């Protein structure tokens, strides 16, 4: 069942992205609306897949890399639907849903057998994984807004792409939504790292074991911290800030490499 639902959700995301691209290039409202509908339906299918994994495993599905990617994609997709319903940011359909699709595609690539676990993971572990995943999803929004910021900045600097200019959100809107996402995502991500360190200390009697699972999140955390400090106290914004946010998110994603796949 999961093996049907996840590919269906992935196909839906891909179709939605194609429709969103058509809507952007052709300036077709019909294509835009259809894309939104397809994204919403895909998200429902994606939700059903997670529910199914949870039922089959008898626990919250956040214990390995496969489940992490499935839930991360689902959260990013859900955040996209939330932002799209609240803000007029049409082109974001070309940034966040592809990210969600990549996460699902990654999950399908590493496809992990669903292991029934009667005892289930501990409460701290669930808190750690869910808060970290949600944090990363929100930081994914910051990443998406940074990508849009760079695209808009490039369009404005090059002065030669009126069509693109029309469709991209305002620079300050990208900046504002991106900053909000960065702050909330950073707080959750920090909590996730903190609880991870505590869990690690409990399991292995050491705070830091030095694996990719710990190095990448810490590197990402340092990058996000630099961006936030520079923005808040030094008024550091613009392209460099957007580039650092993108770098931080990619480092955060690399955490998957250290997970049990």
């Amino acid at each position, binding site marked *: 069942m999961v093996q049907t639902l996840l590919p269906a959700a992935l196909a839906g995301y891909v179709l939605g992205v194609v429709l969103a691209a058509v809507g952007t290039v052709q300036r077709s409202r019909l294509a835009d609306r259809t894309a939104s509908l397809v994204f919403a339906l895909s998200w429902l299918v994606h939700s059903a897949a997670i529910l199914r994994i949870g039922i089959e495993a008898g626990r919250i599905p956040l214990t390995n890399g496969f489940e992490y990617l499935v839930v991360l994609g689902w959260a990013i997709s859900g955040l996209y639907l939330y932002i799209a319903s609240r803000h007029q940011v049409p082109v974001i359909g070309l940034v966040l849903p592809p990210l969600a699709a990549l996460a699902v595609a990654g999950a399908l690539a590493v496809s992990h057998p669903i292991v029934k676990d009667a005892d289930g993971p501990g409460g701290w572990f669930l808190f750690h994984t869910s808060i970290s995943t949600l944090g990363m999803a929100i930081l994914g929004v910051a990443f998406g807004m940074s990508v849009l910021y760079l695209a*808009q900045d490039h369009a*404005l*600097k090059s*002065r*030669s792409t*009126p*069509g693109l*200019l*029309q469709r*991209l*959100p*305002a*620079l*300050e*809107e990208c900046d504002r939504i991106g900053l909000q996402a960065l702050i909330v995502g950073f707080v959750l991500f920090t909590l996730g790292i903190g609880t991870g360190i505590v869990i690690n200390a409990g399991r292995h009697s050491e705070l830091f074991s030095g694996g990719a699972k710990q190095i990448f999140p810490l590197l990402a955390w340092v990058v996000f911290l630099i961006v936030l400090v520079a923005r808040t106290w*030094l*008024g*550091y*914004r*613009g*392209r*460099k800030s957007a580039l650092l946010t993108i770098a931080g998110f990619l480092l955060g994603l690399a955490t998957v490499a250290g997970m049990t796949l």
Partner: protein
Amino acid sequence: MLTLVGLNHRSAPLDLRERLAMSGQDTRLSLERLCSDPAVSEAFILSTCNRVEFLVRGPTADGGAAIDRYLESEYGLDRALLDRHAYRMVERDAIRHLFRVTAGLDSMILGEPQIQGQVKDAFAMSREAGTTGVVLDRLLQHALSAAKRARSETGISRHPVSVASAAVKLANKIFGKLDGRRVLMLGAGKMGELVARHLHRQGIAELIVCGRRFNNADRAARRFGGRAVHWDDGLDHLRTVDIVIGCTGAPRPVLTRDQVAQALRARRSRALFLIDIAVPRDIDPAVHTLENVYLYDIDALEGVVDDNLEERRSAARLAQRLIDGEVDSFERWRQSRDVAPLIAALRDEFFATGERELERFRSRLGPLTEAQERALRELTRAMTRKFLDRPTRYLRDAGDRGESERIASLLLKMFDLKLSDKETPREDDRKRRKNGPQRLLKGGRDDP
């Protein structure tokens, strides 16, 4: 012969157009200088941020050469440079171009409304300088009325787009909503005010007008509930404003890269949008290389406008058809004007013949009373007029049929007529009646 030489946004880069940019006084002097050339009898100059065009009328085909001579001596533009960047048109092509320009069909923003006012102002300037005569007066009036028709009878005015709206659109793309934003206007130029008006409608928090002439700045600021500051204090506001409009008449940039870079540090890298609608430019183009700074000059602003483009293109096609009809109508007037001296000569010849024949037969009639004498003369003139009525009408309509030249040449040969070099008295009278005692052609000369 009518000759037009011009440089516009398509043919020449902004830095070349800047070299030719003229203030009101410059234009007047240029008109007078052009008209001092023997090859030029009437002249008109249109200088806007997008184009500089010279339209001259002269007795020969040397009008273009006269413009070249002028541009070389005054602006150091040699022929090779002009050949690369200028367009040249004569007669019907020049007329059609002027009509298209006036209707906004040649503008970078298709159908933009400002150009009509700019042509009107340039026309007034030429009249004031006394460099337009019968033909250019009529041509410009016709071009303006054709543009008015195009705006009212086609959809081209239903989708108004301008540099100002482009500026607002770009500001929206940087800041989103503009309410609460602060704007600094350098200078109090007309176009700057237009941009300020558009921004004001978007709910900006404050407009600061900074001008070398405080009174002008104050007047402009009051219109939009803003405040004026002295020129020397203006740059301090760079630290706090979000948008800067450059619209001074300064011959070189008034805002340098270093000044903006210095302000950026105090701004903590907040985005700054600079709109430079002055020609010559007010803001050093290198400012655009600074991070979080977006500088748009007149060419760049117009390049981003594609609102309602399809509707405007479709309306422009209709407007073009209308303009073509108006050009034909003007050409007919010109041709009928060309035959006017011939009609006058023909009439003079017939009346003179009548007078001669009357004198020849006069002695055979014996003594006549004064009333009989007058009746006889009137009879002769009335008969001459009757004889000439149909040929005159035929000749006047020949222009419509494109035959005026052939028929005129035939009549000249048939009656061995000599045309007067001067303009017909009827036209001179009409001009005087129309313009009253303040004759338009103060310094203008007509074809010798």
